[in-house]
């Protein structure tokens, strides 16, 4: 299933994709960590957007659109990006590692865990690319 980003349907589609994708399941089999995203307004996004993903051993245990950061006070990783940058990543126009190396995607959390699991991160982005039909 593909959906328009940003929308609850898109996040639900991503969750389903992560749980159904064999390649992701294999690559991410050791991943243990939830992600909290802050997307800063820019272009067609007028207000800050948040969403949350609970990723565990190659599956997605939970996802919440417009998540309240107070509900998830200690995610393993917090990611911040401007709307145009995150949509460029989702459309495959901006390499995710490039987004990270140039700090267009700011990452807070254990860098050791992140650097150890770059293949998982890249495959997560592949799944996100594949469920993104279009951008608002």
């Amino acid at each position, binding site marked *: 299933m593909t959906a328009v980003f940003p929308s609850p349907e898109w996040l639900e589609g991503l969750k389903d994709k992560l749980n159904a994708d064999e390649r992701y399941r294999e690559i991410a089999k050791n991943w243990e960590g939830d992600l909290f995203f802050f997307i800063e307004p820019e272009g067609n996004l007028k207000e800050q957007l948040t969403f949350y993903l609970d990723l565990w051993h190659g599956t997605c245990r939970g996802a919440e659109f417009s998540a309240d950061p107070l509900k998830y006070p200690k995610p393993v990783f917090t990611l911040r990006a401007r709307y145009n940058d995150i949509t460029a990543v989702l459309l495959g126009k901006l*390499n*995710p*590692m*490039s*987004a*990270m*190396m*140039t*700090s267009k*995607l*700011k*990452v807070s959390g*254990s*860098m*050791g*865990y*992140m*650097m*150890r699991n*770059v*293949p998982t991160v890249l495959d997560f982005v592949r799944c996100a690319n594949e469920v993104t039909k279009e951008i608002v």
Partner: protein
Amino acid sequence: MQPILKFNLSTGNSEEYRIPETWEKQFLGGASLAARLLYDSLTPSLDPFAPEAPLLFMTGPLTGTSGPTTGRFVICGLSPATGLWSESHIGGFWGPELRSAGYDGLWLTGKADRPVYLWINEGKIEVREAGHLMGKDTYETQDLVKAEVGVKGMRVCVIGPAGEKQVLYASILSDHGRLAGRTGLGAVMGSKNVKAVAVHGTNKIPVFDLTAYMPLRSEANRTLKQDNEAHILHELGSAGAANYAEYLGQMPVKYYSQGAFPEVDKVSGSMMTESILAGTSACQGCVIACGRVVKLEDGNKRKGPEYETTVAFGANLLNSDLSAVVRLGELCDRYGMDTISAGNTLGLAFTLFEQGVLTRSDTDGLDLAWGDVAVIEQLLHKIGRREGIGDLLALGSRRFGAHFKSEEKAVQVNGLEVAYHDPRGVSGMALSYATSPRGACHNQSDYFFVEWGHIFPDLGIDFYERQGGAEKAANVARHQDWRTVFNALTMCIFANVDPAMQVKLINTACGLDWSLEDMMQAGERAWNLKRAINNRLGLTRANDKLPKALLEPLPDGGSAGFIPDLPAMLDAYYTVRGWDPESGRPTKERLLALGLDDIAADLWP
């Protein structure tokens, strides 16, 4: 600029040398200005160990100004390993201290008639006896000189036994474990009978417009502190890249013959942080602090390894014992030897032993079994002391290979051992290594960062497929120019500074009114100048090559099946550079366009 202190070790004569203003504006400082200063003296007949061979310690216009990672300096001359231009960059505090002492550089010639160390204090130079320091390791020597001089805040750079005995990859160390590792300038310092150079000063470091510079440096440092890459380097050190490098096939394994190293995590920056890390260390004014302080079983705190050392004594030799990597790195530091070249040369020895080219009769009875840490340690001692097989290993991989009729198996370019970034995993490094002015160096263009996505669109440095070919030649050339600016400023390549900010820092520090393109042209100018020096020393297009091992595909790992198309990449690169495809020299037109009229006249009489 402040003057350069010229000192002739043979005569004891000193001179304050004022740099022509035009050269300041053309070359800024650091390695670029050093290349201009040394151009005339680096002749084909010059022996790097001859008394007349120069050894130039240079700072840059930002050195010691508390800008982003500006605590560094560079040492330049003629490399005994390559016979080519040599520059070796080093962090710590020594460079800023030299500027505080009133000099922007120290230019040594001649040879002392006995072991000495130099003491430069507030604009005065003194020669002191160093006979009692001979044979002492670099850490001991630093402590002894500091105790002997006894001036608070002084800094000292030293050589170890490897430099005294002219190991061809001997290094120069300062501030405990910071070092100018590559190209063997420690051996040149040793050839001059100089064991150490101590400096101290209290002068303010000159900045053209300090009022304008201060808020800029604050902003640059603030931004740098928030940078992802800086976070990784601070948290994990440069070895934090190990897992990703292995995944890409960038990390050499078993002397560049294997594509994967499943045990990489045991010798990664992540593992170091989670197991033995006891603290971090930083060069002067640096907000990143990539230096590692680790604690091993004996409870003592010591320097932890960076990426290159981790691979040199890890994956390269099939060792996955992190504590052993720490100890082997320390051993090299204490002898004063470059870990990249030492690990690489050992890798060749292990390869030749496995292939039966070397036998126990060649190795002083040692079995060179991959991953045998005790053997590696014994060999490092032998190199540092130039004993037995160590006397041959001390010559580096090219000469060691040639001795056993296996030069083609040495993974080196023009006599400098290839650093631990395999171009089969990140193909831009093929051009970086083949065209670097100092041999197979990763610091003239750490292009693998671009392959990872660290791009600079404002400079025309964009993202290409990591296993691409000729289409990235212009990108590599631009990146080399960009890094040449860093090496002129003596800024660390780990500083992810926005190019527009970089120009502002230069303009306010130097009183210039440069654009981005002016800055890049300064990089290109110095790149071509260093090329011209090497051309005069005999370098031709035939030298722009990669070793055989890197042109054979690996069956597994992140680079599986790929080799860079170097001939096509070089053709494109020559076109971009404006270099003559026959001679390998920059064309007269290109040199003139860069304002290098006298160099053009010399190269194209």
